[in-house]
């Protein structure tokens, strides 16, 4: 859940936590109170795996992107080693035009290049980078605090705020939209 698409008539709040235990517990309580997983986003200064916070797993396309990149690299390697020597055949050192041993070296290198480049592009694509906002954010996130961003109908707000405070929220703020 990268972005929270704010629904009509909903208000957005961010609860800040100092430690992961109270954050996880509060997320469970928010769910019990009827907040859908899609109406929540967690921002943090260190990576917490989903199961630590009790959040749904993100669907994963990155390994697929990486593997396809590797495949493309492999094909480019094959093209360079198998096709280009036949476009302009030149005999060197009594070796065949297309030789398997040097092909192994180079297709390996280009496969890895494809894998690496596509993984990087995959991260950018999957995280919709670069995107400079405006987005909900708070500077305390990069100070190690955990921000639980959620949207709720105004009627339920009071109840939830009280609940979160009980479960250890340091503060509950009306988050600003930042130009990051």
């Amino acid at each position, binding site marked *: 859940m990268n972005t929270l698409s704010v629904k009509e008539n909903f208000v957005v709040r961010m609860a800040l936590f100092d430690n992961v235990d109270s954050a996880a517990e509060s997320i469970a309580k928010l769910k019990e109170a009827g907040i859908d997983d899609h109406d929540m986003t967690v921002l943090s200064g260190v990576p917490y795996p989903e199961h630590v916070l009790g959040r749904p797993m993100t669907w994963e396309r990155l390994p697929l992107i990486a593997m396809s990149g590797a495949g493309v690299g492999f094909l480019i390697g094959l093209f360079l080693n198998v096709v280009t020597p036949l476009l302009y055949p030149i005999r060197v*050192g009594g070796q065949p035009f297309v030789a398997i041993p040097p092909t192994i070296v180079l297709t390996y290198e280009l496969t890895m290049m494809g894998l690496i480049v596509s993984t990087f592009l995959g991260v950018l694509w999957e995280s919709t980078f670069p995107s400079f906002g405006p987005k909900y954010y708070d500077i305390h996130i990069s100070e190690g605090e955990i921000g639980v961003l959620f949207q709720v109908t105004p009627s339920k707000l009071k109840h939830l705020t009280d609940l979160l405070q009980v479960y250890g929220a340091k503060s509950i703020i009306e988050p600003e939209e930042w130009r990051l």
Partner: protein
Amino acid sequence: MSKYEHHWTMIVDLDKCTGCQACVIACQAENNIPVVGEDEIRKGRGMQWLRIERYWEGEYPNIRARFIPLMCQQCENAPCEPVCPVFATYHSEVDGINVQVYNRCIGTRYCANNCPYIARMFNWFDPQFPEPLNEQLNPDVTVRQRGIMEKCTFCIQRIRRARETAEAEGRSIRDGEVQPACGQACPTNAIIFGDLNDPNSQVSRLAANRRGFRLLEELGTEPAVIYLKGGESNVI
């Protein structure tokens, strides 16, 4: 018969070589090889495509000198060829010799390192032909730029000319029609050149000589230069 149209081969009879260096000078003149001067020669930057190596045998006063003219061996499995990243050196399928394409060379000098005969020369600086040397430049041969490799070509310009003449006259190249500058200059006829594909050529007959050997044969480079072992006469 080899897989090439011609299989140009050189026979060097060490029994006949006197170490007079006429071949070295002839080669230098024929192939527009720059004169680099004393200082550079002392550094080991002389550019002779053909050099006379001199080895001493024994201790003074029973000392003997042996000579061996050494040029590019035009190896069948040339170690210099596959290491070039830009195909500046490759094997000619027509002449069966190792070719250097000056204009492709970028000067990695990898080929020179990999040549077990140290036969390849590098243009450390732009070539200088001070007056009146410029008057005798051979118009059939390129003058090379700084930063590229060069080496003995078996006087490929003479091979080309002979082929053109033969083609114009509608015949094949006759034995002895192509003679490299070194062979032409040799006063004792120690250097014989010809086509190994022609069983009646002089080189074919000499190649069968039991004095014949190839330099550093154990490396498997299969040189196209065959030396005939020298006896007592190759001694001063």
